């Protein structure tokens, strides 16, 4: 459930196909995941999982895999 929700956040925020939302996908590795899209992604994750991310975690969220690790800190299981 949460994994699907996570992928949906990436798809909506970055405007990409869900097939490319895999652990290895990294920030700035594709044109769609730039700094502006990153903040859109953060807003989407916060709204979907009802959390408020720390600034350090926003900066550290450098890949899909890292996003999963960070979300676990906020008791979101993906």
């Amino acid at each position: 459930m949460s994994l699907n929700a996570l992928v949906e956040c990436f798809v909506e925020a970055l405007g990409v196909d869900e097939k490319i939302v895999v652990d290895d996908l990294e920030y700035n590795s594709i044109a769609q995941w730039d700094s502006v899209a990153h903040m859109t992604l953060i807003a989407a994750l916060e709204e979907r999982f009802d959390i408020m991310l720390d600034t350090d975690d926003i900066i550290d969220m450098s890949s899909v895999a890292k996003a999963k690790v960070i979300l676990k800190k906020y008791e979101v299981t993906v």
Partner: protein
Amino acid sequence: MLLQDKVAIVTGATRGIGLTIATQLCKQGALVFINGRDEIKVAEVVDKLTNEGFLAESFVCDVADADSVKNAFRLFLKKSKKLDVLVNNAGILDDALIGMVTKKQIENTFTVNTFSVLYMSQYASRIMSRNKSGSIVNIASIIGTNGNRGQAVYGGSKAAVIGITKSLAKELAATGIRVNAVAPGFIDTDMARSITEDVFAERVSSVAMKRIGTPEEIAGTVTYLSSYLSEYVTGQVIGVDGGMLI
């Protein structure tokens, strides 16, 4: 009403211009979160507004402390899932000639007047971006635009607020968030009434309209910038100073 169903946060809202702004936003139908450091004073203002039939909630934190701001926004999200308006009003004035300014005065002034605007805007803009709309109104000062003798620190801190306003306006426009500033001139507050009669008269004489401004006149411009009436206005600094020359 201009702000029906809107949710606003006003910092430094337990007294003075902040309280007047909060009250005026309430009168326009907004649910207003009252910010202050003192939980009891915030509760008193919330109770007063609620008893008058307005919608008000507390937002207790020290806006100069990033962790305190973060915790306040976490609590805010338990009460409201959206934010339409942020008014960064909290500020301090601690004047001294440049040779007599202490490091502590400099740090305190910039932390409260400037850093707080960044801390608050960071969290507020993330919540506002969910709805692709919002208005941030920063209270600057005529000292920030024109400068004044003995006010290098205060003027610098308020000039920085103007720089923040213009930069954020450009950055956040794509997410539908407008950012503007109000630059008050000589306004009738406890601080203005605490100066000597001679200085008071001198200040009034420098105002083209030959009178002191009221907190309500600041709140009126803030209300305009908070509402749909200004929906194509961003990155602006509006002087509310009666044509003051400084």
